[in-house]
Structure formats: structure tokens, C-alpha cells
């Protein structure tokens, strides 16, 4: 989250290359400065580790969503095919759900994947406040093309560190 409302002025450093960006992030943190945000045009491998971000809990959520999907699919197939209106398709046993289970496996699988994938995307969008019409948060549109930006609160000695780390452009806002 960008700390745009803070009273401390922000410094924005632009980089040209993702490898330079990662080593710069490491250098800046090693020098004791706190990075508030990094904007990149594409996901950079290892950046989360270099920035020292907390590990995402989306994986746990995905597992839960998958279980929900599986439960829904079991209930769905049981209610529709066995309980409410027993259907004999291809002479397969329909006395109880378990006997006909192999026929339902594709449905169980698809619903598990469907729930996990969709709910994960919705969770991601909600947590990041990305809804239709939301204001763009990147301060410089070039970070959607070929520039990488590190944003951090101004501090003493920061500019020198940024220059040494390979920044191609430094701006104070």
C-alpha cells in the first residue's frame, strides 16, 4: 500500500532492469531504509523475498475454497442424481452416492478447481481494492511499460544510496 497520505515527503527512484531493481532493493534495505512500495510492469521473481514481505496466505484460502467446491459438488451430485430424482444413466447403480461415485469424479474435480480459482481471484481483487472504476495507484504510468519504481519516505542519506544502487531517475514528491 502506498503511504501517500503521510506527511513525510516521498522519494521515487526509477530503475531500468529487474535484476538491478532486486539488488537495489537489497542494498536499500541493508542500508536501513524502509521501502513503502515497489511498482513493476510485470511480476518479478524473488522481489517479495528481497523486500521482506510477509508470506501470502492466499494458499490457505485456496485450499479452503477447494474444499468448499468439493462439498458443493458432492451435495449437488447427491441431491440431483440420487436423492431428489434418481437417474439411471448407462445402467450405473444409483442406489447410493458412493456406488456411482466414479461417474461424479469429473464434476467433483471441476467444481473444486472452479471454486478455488474463482474465489481466489475475487479474494485478490477485494483485498487489493481493485474494483471496476478504481483509481490507478501507480504514480508514474511508465511503471506499466518498461520502468521499475521504488517508493520510500525521504530520509537522510537516502539519495546517495539510491544513486549508488543504480537508479536512473530520482524524484522527490
Amino acid at each position, binding site marked *: 500500500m502506498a503511504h501517500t497520505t503521510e506527511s513525510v515527503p516521498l522519494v521515487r527512484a526509477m530503475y531500468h532492469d529487474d535484476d538491478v531493481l532486486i539488488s537495489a532493493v537489497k542494498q536499500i534495505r541493508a542500508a536501513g531504509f524502509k521501502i513503502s512500495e515497489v511498482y513493476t510492469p510485470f511480476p518479478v521473481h524473488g522481489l517479495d523475498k528481497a523486500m521482506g514481505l510477509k508470506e501470502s496466505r492466499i494458499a490457505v484460502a485456496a485450499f479452503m475454497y477447494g474444499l468448499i467446491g468439493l462439498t458443493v459438488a458432492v451435495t449437488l451430485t447427491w441431491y440431483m442424481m440420487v436423492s431428489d430424482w434418481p437417474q439411471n444413466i448407462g445402467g450405473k447403480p444409483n442406489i447410493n452416492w458412493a456406488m456411482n461415485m466414479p461417474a461424479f*469424479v469429473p464434476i467433483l474435480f471441476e467444481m473444486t478447481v472452479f471454486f478455488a480459482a474463482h474465489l481466489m481471484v475475487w479474494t485478490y481483487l477485494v483485498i487489493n481494492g481493485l474494483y471496476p472504476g478504481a483509481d490507478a495507484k501507480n504514480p508514474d504510468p511508465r511503471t506499466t511499460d518498461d520502468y521499475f519504481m521504488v517508493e520510500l519516505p525521504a530520509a537522510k542519506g537516502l539519495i546517495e544510496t539510491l544513486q549508488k544502487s543504480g537508479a536512473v531517475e530520482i524524484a522527490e514528491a
Partner: protein
Amino acid sequence: MFVFTSKMKLLAGSLTLVGLVFLLIGFNTDYSSHADSGDHGAPAQAHAEEAHAAEAHTDDAQATEAPATEAHAAEGHADMAYTAEGHAEAHADMAHASEGHADDAHASDHGHDLSANRPWAAFLVNSIFFLGIGIGTLFFLAIQYAAQVGWSVGLIRVFEAVSMFVGIPILGILFLIATGGMHMHHLWHWMAEGIMDPASPNYDSLIAGKEAYLNVPFFALRTIAYLVIWAGAAFLLRRNSLREDALPQGQNMFFTQRKLAATFIVLYAVTSSTSAWDWVMSVDPHWFSTLFGWYTFAGMFVTAMTVLNLLVMYLRLNNHLPWINENHQHDLSKFMFAFSVFWTYLWFSQYMLIWYSNIPEEVTYYLPRFKGEYKPLFIAMVAMNFLLPILVLISRDAKRIFGFIGLASVFVLAGHWMDHYIMIMPGAVGYSFGFGFAELGGILFYAGLFLWVTLSQLAKVPLRLKNHPMLTESERFQQ
């Protein structure tokens, strides 16, 4: 540099020797007592009996007919479909021929019942299982070159060492083919005497229709071809990689390797399927499944990934691979996890189509496995190969922790050994299966040889490549 210590040599050597002794005991054991009890005769007959049991609850109209006639008619029909040449014989005769085969051929074609096949079948199970480690790794090694993979370069020496093992289990299979050709056993039932001869009481028109493919000389020739292609590819990839170390910096050898690897992958795409049909599927010569080759391949590949994971863990624990970190291990575990799921996908694809269509000639394969005495093993096998690795390895952290990887490895290795066992045993020995000296001996024997070959190959050269163009990429992997 890795050293093949005398302690490890002793372990590998004694495993091989103890395995050999167990094998000798296993081959000199009389397994017939179990089968003498009467109800464990020919599985083909059991199939026939259960086939109409399965049909009975399928279709009400069919169930009202006399079950015996039903099964016979179905068999006769299957006959026609197989040979397709249009036999002059009447339906009843055909049905009788295959029934007669079920009664006599399986049970008494060489004086005693199928239980005599057991040590041979056990040796085939172990040969296929350990072959999977070698060929799966060789295939993985070839992918690394063909796809120009960066992350795994630091591990290529390990892959090479394991893939050098690929020839030994094939020699074991060649031994089985030679002894089968000499009628010391009829592990592959189509090798039985007179089975292709219309004048013989053993004649089986279904199998005779496949004579062009299933005959001993061509069978042995194909096995030799697999040996040459696979072991040859392993040898060449290894030799070139060692030569690369001595070359000045450059990419020439890398591109040579890439061409070699791509060629091998194309050849393996065909031979992986045909070898599985030959060695494993022809144990049940009446039955066929088009995805059997990929199913066997998936099991072999996940076995190989598991063994590689364990081997890399062992080497890392002993500080032989300081340039390998938990990110590399994570990727190997991902392969193990993903291919466990892939194996399940193919297993289920084969199972569900046969279960759903419920055609006698196909469903016979699953009757002893899912309705007969193999059922507990079968269910346990699927749980071990699918549920347990999924639950143990699904989290990102678990794929990096030795304890979790080790736990999943135990399930996967035991599970895939059981998978090969259940593929081969019902067709080869009927219900006179078990776990004794022959099975354990084969495991120890091959495990000892595997350790010997792999560790001595690892000790030959430094474990770090010198001139591979992507070595730095591998060492900086997510660092």
C-alpha cells in the same frame, strides 16, 4: 567431491548379495499349496464367472437370461471383434475355444498351475519398478537439455548418475524373456506352447490373432532395441557432458546435447508406450488399453522424481551440493507432487472408461483387482499414490522440508511398487500372490545394484559442471 565410501560399498554389495540369496530361495520355493485349495484356479475362469455377475446388475433385461449363456455369448462376440478376419467357425465353437482356454490352458498347460510363475512375476515387478527410476530420470535429463532448462543445471550430474542405471533392469527383463522362451515359466501367457497352433488343445484364437506382434523373437528384438536406445542415450548424454568439462567456454556441446536429447525424447515417446505394452500389458494378453503406456510412464516418472528427491536430499545433507538450495528441492518436489496427480489422472481415465462401458473384454481386467482378492491392495495403492502425497505435499513449505518430502517419498515408492505389482500379478499368477523371499529378494537385489551404479558414477567426477552455459543461472536460482 563425492566419495563412494567403503561403508556404502559394503551396504550396496551386501544388499545385492542378500537379495540374490533371497531370490534363489524364492525361486526354489513351491508356491502351489495355496492354489491346491481349489478355489484359486485360473483367473480367466474367475473373470468369466464374475463378468456376468457384473452384467447382472447392469441391465435388467440381460439379467433375466441365463447368466452362463450370456458370458459365453459375450466371449464369442469379443472373439470376433478381435480377429475381425471373419472366422469360419460358429459362435459356439469360438466361445468354447476361449472357455476351454480358461479352463485348461491357464491352469494346466505345463503340468501345474499359475503359482509356479510367482518368483518370475515377482522379478518382473521389481525389474519394472527399478527400470522406472532409471528411465524416468533419463527422460527428465533429456528434458533439461531439450527445453534449455536453467534451474536444474547444478543437479545434472545427479541425473546422469541415476540414468546410467537404466540398462540393468532391462537385462533382468531379457533374462525373463529368455527363460520364458525356453518355457521355464509362462509369465507372459502368450508364450505357452501350442497357443498359436489351431491343432493344439491349448489353442487360443484371440492370442493367435496377435501372433504377428506377440512372438518371442520379435519380443526379444524389441527389448534389445529399448536397451540400445535407452542405455545408449544415457551413455552419450553422460559422455558428452564429461567432455564439455574439458572444453573451453562455449555452447557447442550444449547444442549437441540438445539435439541428442530431442532425438531421444522422440524415440522414447514411441518406446515408452510399446515397452509398457510388451512387458506389462501382454501379461494379460486378451486385454488391451490404449493409454496403458502413458499410465505406466506416469508411474515410472513419479518414482524417478521421488528417488531423485531423496538422493538430492542425501547429498545436500552431506554437503556435497553446496550450490543447491531449498528452491531447487522445492522444484523437484513440485514434479513429484504434480506427477502423482498426473498418474492418478491417467489411472482414473483408464478405470472410469472401463467401469462406465462395462464391456466384458475390457472389464475382466478390473474384476480380480476391484472385486477379487486384490481389492484391499488396489484401494490402498490408490490412496498411497494420490491422497497421501497430495495431503503431505500440497503446502509450499512442505515441499521444502526434508521430513515432509521423506514421508511422501515413502508413500509414493511403496505405492508405485504396489501399482506395478497389481498390474502384473493377477495376469501372471492369478490369486496365488503374496509377499515372500522372491519379492523381497528382487527389491534388495536391485536396490543394491542401484546404489552401486549410482554412487560409483557420482564419485567418478566432480558434481559441479564446469562449462554448462546456464550454470550461473542455476546457482542464482531465486537467490
